[in-house]
């Protein structure tokens, strides 16, 4: 059951030029959350910005009752969030939304993240690994300094394939090219993907071509985060007129459900 909690900040670190990791104590949220779910954060000072900001669960420590977020500073809300200091509080609603589907033990999962889209995949990697799946994680970034999830993924112990645009680490080029060139489809039972929509569209094509089941995590502006305002609706493939709510019916959707911007 989602809750509204004021979480005590334990750690807040800048992990790249514009990315931060924020860990705070929030037992109510940590207790029941699933990979792919998100929290709705109020970072505002004096209600500016007005609305909460959705951020994925990047990692969860159920024993400690803490969650960790990975976020990129892109505007007012994330900018203000980055000023919060340890011992201050974060106002969070969560866990919200429908997360990634589980996978049976010994199956192989391919996790493909673009940029800060790696966020929900790290917690997913931890849970899948723990459940005995084989996990391969691909992360596409501009340069090696943005491979911020590396320490955690190593710690979890999954296979990690970085792709950098400048070739400063791993595969040189687009993450989607790495998938095309280096992944043999028959090894993969399920693809989980999060990143810019054009990237997710290409990964979806790859999955479809090779008949691999796949899920993607979508973004849309959100107001309520709980399915009440219908603000985050996106058109579904099933029908010209049907909309689903990213916040409640998603953010994770099967690639068969949702139409992506290319």
């Amino acid at each position, binding site marked *: 059951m*989602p809750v509204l909690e004021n979480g005590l900040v334990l750690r807040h670190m800048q992990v790249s030029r514009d990315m931060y990791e924020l860990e705070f104590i929030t037992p109510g949220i940590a207790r029941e959350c699933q990979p792919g779910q998100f929290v709705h954060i109020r970072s505002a000072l004096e209600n500016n910005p007005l609305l909460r900001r959705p951020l994925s669960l990047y990692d969860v420590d159920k024993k400690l009752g803490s969650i960790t977020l990975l976020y990129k500073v892109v505007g007012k809300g994330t900018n203000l969030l980055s000023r919060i200091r340890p011992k201050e509080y974060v106002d969070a609603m969560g866990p919200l939304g429908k997360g990634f589907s589980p996978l049976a033990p010994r199956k192989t999962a391919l996790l493909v993240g673009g940029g800060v889209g790696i966020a929900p995949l790290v917690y997913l990697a931890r849970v899948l690994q723990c459940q005995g799946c084989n996990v391969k994680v691909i992360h596409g970034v501009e340069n090696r300094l943005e491979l911020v999830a590396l320490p955690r993924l190593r710690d979890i112990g999954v296979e990690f394939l970085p792709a950098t645009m400048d070739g400063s680490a791993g595969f040189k080029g687009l993450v989607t090219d790495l998938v095309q060139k280096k992944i043999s489809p028959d090894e993969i039972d399920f693809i989980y993907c999060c990143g810019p929509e054009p990237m997710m569209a290409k990964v979806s094509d790859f999955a479809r071509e090779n008949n691999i089941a796949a899920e993607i995590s979508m973004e849309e502006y959100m107001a309520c985060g*709980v399915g009440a305002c219908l603000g*985050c609706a996106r058109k579904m493939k099933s029908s010209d007129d049907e909309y689903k709510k990213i916040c409640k019916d998603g953010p994770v959707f099967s690639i068969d459900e949702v139409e992506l911007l290319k």
Partner: protein
Amino acid sequence: MRKESVPEEKLDLSVNLGGIMMKNPVAVASGTFGYGREYEDFVSIADIGAVIVKGTTLEPRYGNSAPRIIETPAGMLNAIGLENPGVEVFINEHLPYLCEKGVTVIANIAGNTIDEYARIASILEGQKGIAGIEMNISCPNVKEGGLQFGVDPEMVYQVVKAVKDETSIPVMPKLSPNVSDIVAIARAAEAGGADALSMINTLMGMAVDVEKRKPVLGNIFGGLSGPAIKPVALRMIYQVYQAVKLPILGGGGILNCTDALEFILVGATAVSVGTGNFVNPCIARELVEDMEKYLLSHGLKSLEELRGAAH
């Protein structure tokens, strides 16, 4: 500093809003609280003064294309496009649940013709558990070439009267602020037989995506809500309070108790909070608590002494 001690005797903050009996003077605004159930994890929805549910049309509607919302300075624009499953689904799937929970439900209805409004009203008339009907009259009247009902006093009079003729449930038209003369609209609603007025709906606005060089919203235009519009809402309620006798449900940008009291002071009988629910899902309860504290710390027994006191 306010006294934080527990009140000896609980204050009675219940209000009669033109026949709509509210447990306390804070309602949650239509379209911002779904059917109440969406927020059940966070608040006891039966304790809310009134839950004004999502706008309901005769037939199901799918709504506008994305994006549907965007934040603006101290506000937000929405262009949901009245997505809803239609009045039948509301009655069959949502209303019984809300009734059972003891929620004070105000239905919010919208139509494209006077006849549509009347038909929804007559369908609701037979139902138990509807405390009031809020009429969203910021909808385009297809018969009158798409002009909104809410901008023309004659149309307001007609559509309110048509709804009143169909139902014994208290009827509360919700006035659009996008008008030259809000008092004329309020008088027309009063003449049409309205039991109360709800003020204000959103201001029409838009936002532009400078990089894409096109409007942000799929629908181009959207309704502006939130603190940005509070000064306009207060002004209109102040004007209408002086001109008509109907009780007013006041809202537009309420985020805290001071905001809510401003609305009471200009003449609102009760207040509604919309965008504020997104900021803080517990806001309706907290507003009531803070109003109680305010009354106690100022030696007041009820909101009556504040109502309209700014005039």
